[in-house]
């Protein structure tokens, strides 16, 4: 949530800048024509059709209208409503088709709409215009929102699994696997607040990837954790891909994307700037 609003306020900040620059920004993604040939089945799993997302954000007031009782009262008397409510057009007409077995990396600067796009695909944000069609229920790798720092890893594993909709039998079955995968060993008996940030990230990834997802959306989950764990999670992503699922990956670490993805979408100010082979897109992205 915090990182979301932060990103949004940046979108807003960039908004008025250089409108003319956007003209060459949209080089017709041609999602169907450009499909790589290594797609195993070729059936679409996610179709994003001219998607627009508009947010309303609270609390972005300028300095002179901030949290001051007198100002609040004046606003009420003048019937101005809530001036601190701003609309943010975070995603502006994004169109693409994702297929079975795709691992799609999404790159772009802060505030380019990456996280928003993922949340829209997950069905957690309503489209302002356009539509998202999906096969089954895409899930965001975001179980950390349900976990509680004061509780032991053990309790959090159970809580997280239930939060993702598992049954008690499934939780029992997956429990040991999660502990092993996360590699936190005896720390599982300690509260999560005592974990290092790497350990916490490992446990969270282990919990959320324990469930079999048809479409998995990952937002910067692999940034933390040591080398060994990174290898493990990349293997897990490959495994999901091979079981004919689709993975979306948002990351600032371009190496991770290049190693795990077969396709990369470059978002810029809420629009697709480029969509295609990871090497091509990333080298273009690096040039700016």
């Amino acid at each position, binding site marked *: *949530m915090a990182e979301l609003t932060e990103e949004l306020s940046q979108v807003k900040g960039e908004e008025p800048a250089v409108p003319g620059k956007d003209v060459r920004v*949209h080089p*017709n*993604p*041609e999602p*169907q*024509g450009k499909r790589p040939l290594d797609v195993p089945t070729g059936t*679409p*799993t*996610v*179709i994003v*059709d001219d998607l*627009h997302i*508009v947010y*309303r954000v*609270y609390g972005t007031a300028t300095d002179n209208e901030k949290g001051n009782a007198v100002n609040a009262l004046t606003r009420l008397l003048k019937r101005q409503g809530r001036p601190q409510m701003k*609309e*943010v*057009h975070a995603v*502006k*007409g994004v*169109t693409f*088709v994702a297929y079975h077995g795709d691992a799609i990396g999404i790159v772009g600067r802060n505030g380019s709409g990456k996280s928003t796009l993922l*949340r*829209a*695909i*997950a*069905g*957690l*944000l*309503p*489209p302002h*215009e*356009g*539509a*998202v*069609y*999906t*096969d089954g*229920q895409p*899930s*965001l790798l*975001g*179980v*950390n*929102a*349900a976990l*509680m*720092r*004061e*509780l032991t890893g053990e*309790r959090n594993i*159970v*809580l997280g699994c*239930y*939060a*993702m*909709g598992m*049954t*008690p039998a499934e939780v029992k079955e997956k429990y040991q696997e999660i502990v092993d995968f996360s590699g936190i060993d005896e720390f599982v008996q300690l509260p999560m607040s005592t974990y290092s940030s790497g350990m916490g990230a490992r446990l969270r990834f282990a919990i959320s990837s324990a469930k079999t997802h048809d479409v998995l959306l990952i937002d910067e989950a692999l940034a933390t954790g040591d080398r060994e764990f990174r290898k493990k999670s990349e293997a897990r992503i490959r495994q999901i891909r091979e079981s004919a699922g689709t993975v979306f990956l948002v990351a600032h670490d371009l190496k991770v994307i290049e190693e795990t993805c077969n396709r990369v979408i470059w978002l810029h100010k809420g629009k697709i700037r480029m969509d295609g082979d990871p090497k091509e897109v990333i080298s273009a992205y690096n040039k700016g």
Partner: protein
Amino acid sequence: MSQPESAVADAQAGGRSGQEPLAKLAERYGLRRAIARPRFPVYLRQLWERRHFILTYATSRNVSKYSSSALGQLWQVLTPLLNAGIYYVMFGVILGGRGGIENYPAFLLTGMFVFTYTQRVVTAGAKSISGNLSMIRALHFPRASLPLAYTIQELQQLAISMGVLLVIVTATGEWPTWFWLMIPVVLALQTMFNIGASLVIARLGAQMRDLNQLLPFITRTWLYASGVFFSIQDKVVGSAKLPQWVADVMYLNPTASYIEWMRDILIKTHHTQNGHNPPTMVLVSCVFWAVFSLGFGFWYFWRSEERYGRG
């Protein structure tokens, strides 16, 4: 804000001229739109499937709540005890609110504990959606799970408070009778009412950001209107000389009804004309509020299901 029209035109021209529209393609492969509110019966079934999550979440919250304090879970007993002490000193000894009530400690504490249950559920329910936005924005689950979990969390606390209450009431000279078997019935009805109330207040709290600031005043007014410290009959008709129907209407207030029934069960000098049974009006009011609130609460909350966590 920006120029959606130009963006739309842009995307429509984008690469697909001559190919089938994406909506058709989606239909051909049986893909569905991501956002839709399930029908009401389906929604209730989904909630039932999430019962393990709801229970685990409620328990986890209770465990984590006291995890940083030295006395830990003991506070679950200490909090109601301290509250009982303060209210007794304040209203029983200093203000002398006993009136004509024979067993005032039992009268006061029964009212206080029963009312606190509803009050805490309503206060927690108002924050159940607005305080969990990050979870709502990351995970799929029927949103009613949250107010339900908060209610169950308070119910777990209440089980301990009730134990404390029964010990105190016995100590004041009210010996257990067979009528104590009715206590779970009253609490079940009150819980039904509370679930509905928390669902309604959760939706209101999600849409009106100022509700949390207002709520303390609302619950305090409700507290005074529910006759926790005084007998409604004595004060309204006896002291204030208001007509009898005013008192009757006040007894129809849901919390007043649950309090009255509980007092009838626990205190033998309360409403002596019926023994330990409540007056018919109170009984009807208790059942009505439970059924009405539960049904309306789920329906009202469900109507806004796809909008929680947005905007």
